[in-house]
């Protein structure tokens, strides 16, 4: 097993599959009356969050607590971080406190890589700037596998602000590793220069891609992007790239709709689609806890101990 989870690139096919299989076992725990395992008793997990992200933080917190780890939440606001302490000094502080794992969310790409150089424990990247969010990709893959039974050969379409999306970067990488076929759909302004080198197809129109999609994943698109001329208006964006009921009808019967949250309802996805039976958005949240339990378990116990 690996020491850190900084990028989906850190996961080869066997390791990624091990995480998903372990998450399956963890999910059975979450279904029990007593949702707790003693596995990480006495271990300390620090949630180091430099960005507000309640959903990701509580998901990691729930995951660590279900494994009986001690959890320390270290938020950027109201702490020494807002007084200008450097990431390195914070890292040394956490190190001195004996953190076995640090889960970091940070607005700067590569922050998790930097942190990993300064602490002895495991580092889990919970989203770094516009770089990666590997546990999101794992929970997305887990959700796809649960719903559709496989990942190999699955046709996954990711729609929206790929340029600024850490979710897209991690998903493209992990899904390629697991044998899925990824298509990115976005206005050309929201695709990075260099996307040609990614293991994914690129399309500018959504309608022709949907009938060939087993999964369509809608990315959050910030309305403010229109102020930097990434698109002319939010209405135009929604018309061209938003998922409404008509477009959802173009999916094959088994096709599912995913969204990493938080959603901009009315922007990239309509409420009717978000709340439809094809939508896995709530499941993704549930699966997030199981997958993060699996990641923490495998990183901290090296996968040597029995789950339960």
């Amino acid at each position: 097993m690996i020491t850190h989870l900084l990028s989906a690139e850190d996961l080869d096919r066997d390791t990624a599959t091990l995480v998903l299989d372990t998450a399956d076992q963890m999910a059975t725990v979450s279904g029990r009356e007593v949702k707790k395992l003693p596995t990480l008793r006495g271990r300390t997990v620090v949630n180091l969050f430099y960005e507000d992200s309640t959903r990701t933080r509580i998901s990691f917190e729930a995951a660590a607590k279900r494994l009986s780890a001690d959890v320390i939440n270290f938020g950027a606001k109201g702490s020494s971080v807002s007084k200008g302490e450097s990431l390195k000094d914070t890292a040394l502080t956490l190190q001195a406190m004996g953190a076995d794992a640090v889960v970091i969310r940070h607005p700067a790409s590569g922050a998790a890589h930097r942190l990993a150089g300064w602490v002895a424990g495991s580092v889990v990247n919970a989203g770094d700037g516009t770089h990666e969010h590997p546990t999101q990709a794992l929970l997305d893959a887990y959700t796809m596998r649960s719903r559709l039974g496989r990942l190999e050969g699955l046709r996954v379409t990711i729609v929206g602000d790929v340029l600024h999306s850490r979710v897209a970067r991690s998903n493209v990488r992990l899904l390629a590793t697991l044998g899925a076929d990824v298509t990115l759909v976005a206005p050309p302004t929201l695709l990075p220069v260099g996307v040609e080198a990614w293991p994914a197809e690129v399309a500018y129109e959504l309608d022709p891609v949907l009938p060939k999609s087993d999964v369509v994943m809608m990315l959050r698109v910030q309305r403010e992007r229109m102020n930097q001329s990434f698109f002319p208006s939010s209405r135009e964006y929604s018309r061209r790239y938003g998922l409404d009921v008509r477009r959802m009808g173009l999916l094959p019967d088994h096709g599912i709709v995913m969204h990493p949250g938080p959603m901009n309802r009315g922007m990239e996805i309509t409420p009717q689609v978000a709340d439809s039976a094809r939508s896995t958005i709530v499941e993704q949240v549930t699966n997030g806890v199981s997958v993060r339990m699996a990641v923490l378990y495998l990183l901290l116990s090296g996968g040597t101990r029995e789950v339960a």
Partner: protein
Amino acid sequence: MSAYLIRGARLATGEVTDLLLRDGVVAETGRGLSGGEVVDADGLLALPGLVDLHTHLRQPGREDAETVESGSRAAALGGYTAVCAMANTDPVADTAGVVEQVYRLGREAGLVDVQPIGAVTVGLTGERLAELGAMADSAARVRVFSDDGHCVSDPALMRRALEYVKAFGGVIAQHAEEPRLTAGAQMNEGDVSARLGLTGWPAAAEESIIARDALLAGHVGSRLHVCHVSTAGSVEILRWAKAKGIRVTAEVTPHHLLLTDELAATYDPVYKVNPPLRTTEDVEALRAGLADGTIDCVATDHAPHTAEDKECEWAYARPGMLGLETALGVVARAMVSTGLLDWAGVADRMSTAPARIAGLDGHGHELRPGAPANLTLLDPSASWTVDPRGLASLSVNTPYTGLELPVRTVATFLRGTPTVLDGKARW
């Protein structure tokens, strides 16, 4: 002043000779000379003292990162006898007072000639011209003006600056970066930035400014110098401009001749620099451009930064790398070992050409009788491993840690006085 007899040095031309340095000049050349303190130069190469067109000495303002004295020592150890100190200090070198202060500090350190560069615009803000004439007329005799770190992006202001400095034989050294295309930019825009999620700095942001400025310089008949050219496209545009007869010169940094943007994958900001490291294709084009003279010279863009400005997240780190003590080794590795330049070519690109561009009459001369005794003695057969703690700079932000570089500086003479002997700075 004592005389020095350098015995048996090989010149850039290949000729082996003694050099008698007396009264600040090369008094005699030839074999079997006598007189003066003997420096055995058997197997050593004597080049005219190197000249750096682009050095950040950080004083006044950031004496924790570098001072005129520490930077001068680094320069002398790198084989330099003159450096041009960039204007982005605090306060900015945009008045006669500040450039005279830097000039005076350079004289006091006495290890190299420190030639201040003046800011083009007040406070480097790109809004109105600084008193260029006052800086030209000052004791510092400023001839090169630059807002380096910032582009003079307003085309009308750039045109006026190019025109205005003709009155005193000045040149505008442009940091070519269209700021509207590089907002928030962190690294070269391409495959690697796409992968790393770091905001891209497109080559077109540099190339479009170079093209614009070359056209402006041609239109008003002025001289333009382009700082730290970093892309293959820039080389093509420069080649075109020179063919048109436009009076444009250009520099390339050692790091852009050797390193590529793949290094950003470490997220270690020691590799963060502006303009950013580019691709292998760019490196090859820059080497070819330097070899054929499209790029006139090598300039270090020596940019010391404190540990706290580098031991942080990539996006929060300051751009820039040390360069003075490693420039010659990097150029030897990128250009000489590859057969692209011989030592005469190195002497031209690192001494004669930059001295000519900067108007430093006392530097860049062939080592002939009567020439100012500004020279460096190099051991081309020695190599060394870069250790940041072993450098004379106050900062340690070298991207070459652990790299073995060819060529050691054995001695450097400034107007006949050794600033470096036996590989060590004299003071």
